[in-house]
């Protein structure tokens, strides 16, 4: 182990290890962040939701978007898998259907960055208690 000899050394180490606890720090203040829920039931996984989830996790960071990505169970929209529910702070959740990795990129660039809606939004037609 290289010794820390200055404030700059400590800062460099801190930046390198920050990712280790990023996920935990973000989830502490989840209500202020964009929440992305990927439906990961059997049908979702079969339709490629695992790739979608990985894509979100890797590319949100690259784009500098602070968000919490979680998995959830089946949302019921099996015809439109992979499905993703996105909640921006203070807004109603929106469900997107057919989210392949290409579409994930589109969502990041359009909805997450510029608040532009994209095609294939599933109208939320139920209420949860």
């Amino acid at each position, binding site marked *: 182990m290289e*010794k820390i000899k200055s404030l700059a050394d400590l800062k460099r*180490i801190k930046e390198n290890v920050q990712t280790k606890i990023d996920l935990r720090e973000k989830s502490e203040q989840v209500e202020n962040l964009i929440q992305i829920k990927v439906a*990961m039931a059997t049908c979702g996984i079969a339709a490629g939701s695992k790739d979608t989830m990985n894509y979100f996790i890797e590319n949100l960071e690259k784009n500098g978007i602070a968000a919490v990505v979680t*998995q959830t169970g089946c949302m019921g929209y099996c015809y439109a898998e992979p499905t993703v529910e996105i909640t921006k702070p203070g807004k109603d959740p929106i469900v997107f259907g057919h989210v392949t990795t290409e579409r994930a990129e589109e969502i990041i660039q359009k909805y997450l960055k510029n608040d532009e809606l994209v095609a294939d939004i599933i109208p939320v037609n139920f209420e949860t208690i």
Partner: protein
Amino acid sequence: MSYKMHILVCGGTGCRASASHQIITRLEECLKEKNLEDEVQVIATGCFGFCEKGPIVKVMPDNTFYVQVKPDDAEEIVNEHVIKGRKVERLLYKDPEKKEAVSDSKHMGFYKKQLRIALRNCGFIDPENIEEYIAREGYSALAKCITKMKPEEVINEIKLSGLRGRGGGGFPTGLKWEFASKYQADQKYVVCNADEGDPGAFMDRSIMEGDPHSVIEAMAICGYSIGATKGLVYIRAEYPLAIQRLKTAIHQAEEFGLLGENIFGSNFSFNIELRYGAGAFVCGEETALIHSMEGHRGEPTMKPPFPAESGYLNRPTNVNNVETLANIPAIIIKGANWFNKIGTERSKGTKVFALAGKINNVGLIEVPMGTTLREVIYEIGGGIKNGKKFKAVQTGGPSGGCLTEKHLDVPIDFDNLLASGSMMGSGGMIVMDEDDCMVSVAKFYLEFTVEESCGKCTPCRIGNKRLHETLDKITQGKGTMEDLETLKNLSRVIKDTALCGLGQTSPNPVLSTIDNFYDEYLAHIKDKKCPAGQCKALLMFHIDPELCIGCGLCARNCPVDAIVGERKEPHFINTAKCIKCGACMEKCKFKAVSTR
């Protein structure tokens, strides 16, 4: 590729006692089986504070809070929660009042009112991994002090913050540091007092187990401010896990160059060693602690000289409690002005309390000074167990006193607790309900003080023994009104004449129970009755002929053959023979034996 999910498992002493380390092993095995070991990370953390329902498992990022998890539940958590995203309903915490499952920790009453400064990393980071501490701005307070501040600036910042000692005395920390900094010597010492001895208090242990680096960093900051290069942690040997975590942390800090020579390229050097105590209550008193570290008997000596002038090996020594130290890095990073806005006029910041006794949520909590007892007991603590009535709460351990219903809305801080006839102490809070006998409670604490008295001064050695005997006499139903006067007078004499804090405060439980529960003392003395039904000598055992089926189980278990009766006929207790051991009551399957 970073992990998508973190599973935090409590690795504190409490949860480990319920096999939390096996939960970790099982989780890791199950994840490996499903090839998820690169996606999900399992982390052993420090105490979450919610010890009542341990072992705790928390899943991030969705903040799912699982309680009372067993190693066998690991598979279900992996299969259901991790793979399918469905929470394991049966392991969720259930709100005791609403009877509903609470899915995430954000919605638990237990955490809502808490503000965690000293416990900021407990239950959040892996205490055995220095990198996680650094990621939480660890050691940046030390870096700030050494590279950007002069020692007197650091002391001023601590003075300005209004931080007071959390070990019991409540002495201003900045002032203490200033005293120690003024004395010149070839060597000075920073001592961390980790001799936590109040019955029921475990905040210091939890901090050392859950966030050992915060204590190490603060000791180094103190060393820099007062000009000391050696740090010593006086820790009781019965805290093996805390010792192990501290050792690991010290070793890691040395490897990273955060302890040792020329820290951050400056000419400041600092090293820390551990000293083990045998677990004597009096050794929490700073002069006794220092003598014990020197290899002498753990007996207190008169102050002055204060340790700041002549302490360990007759050198200037600064002694701070664990929780006090854990606050220091946060104050340096966020500034004194942030800290002194929290709390009340004369007590700044937060205080950690160990909730114990007849309360629903037994555990460790941290609240801003000025929070009321009602908020702590009913909102955070979830109220009294089994819907019983609140009677009193004992604060300050054996040196403290009892607070009653009328004190429930008093904002808790150092001065208000003293004014109410109790004290802050190290933060133990033992909640009592209608079934607790206050005379017995006072007797229990005196028993503790008699046991722990070092015997050096007469008032404490003999006086407390007499207090205990008199209380015992009252619980036996042999007390007189003169005894009550003796208790009061003797208590005052001991308070005025004992040598150290132990003796000066030991009569507090007696005085405060007499003050607040005078009627209960009278009932014991005049009516020879114990209203709470706890003092066995004052009880009469009785068999209800309606409920007794004459099975004879009680008679067979009675050690003095005091129970008579024909088979299949109601039995009777011969009260002249009965020694009131309670064996019959315990054995009876029909609840026919009662006391009155």
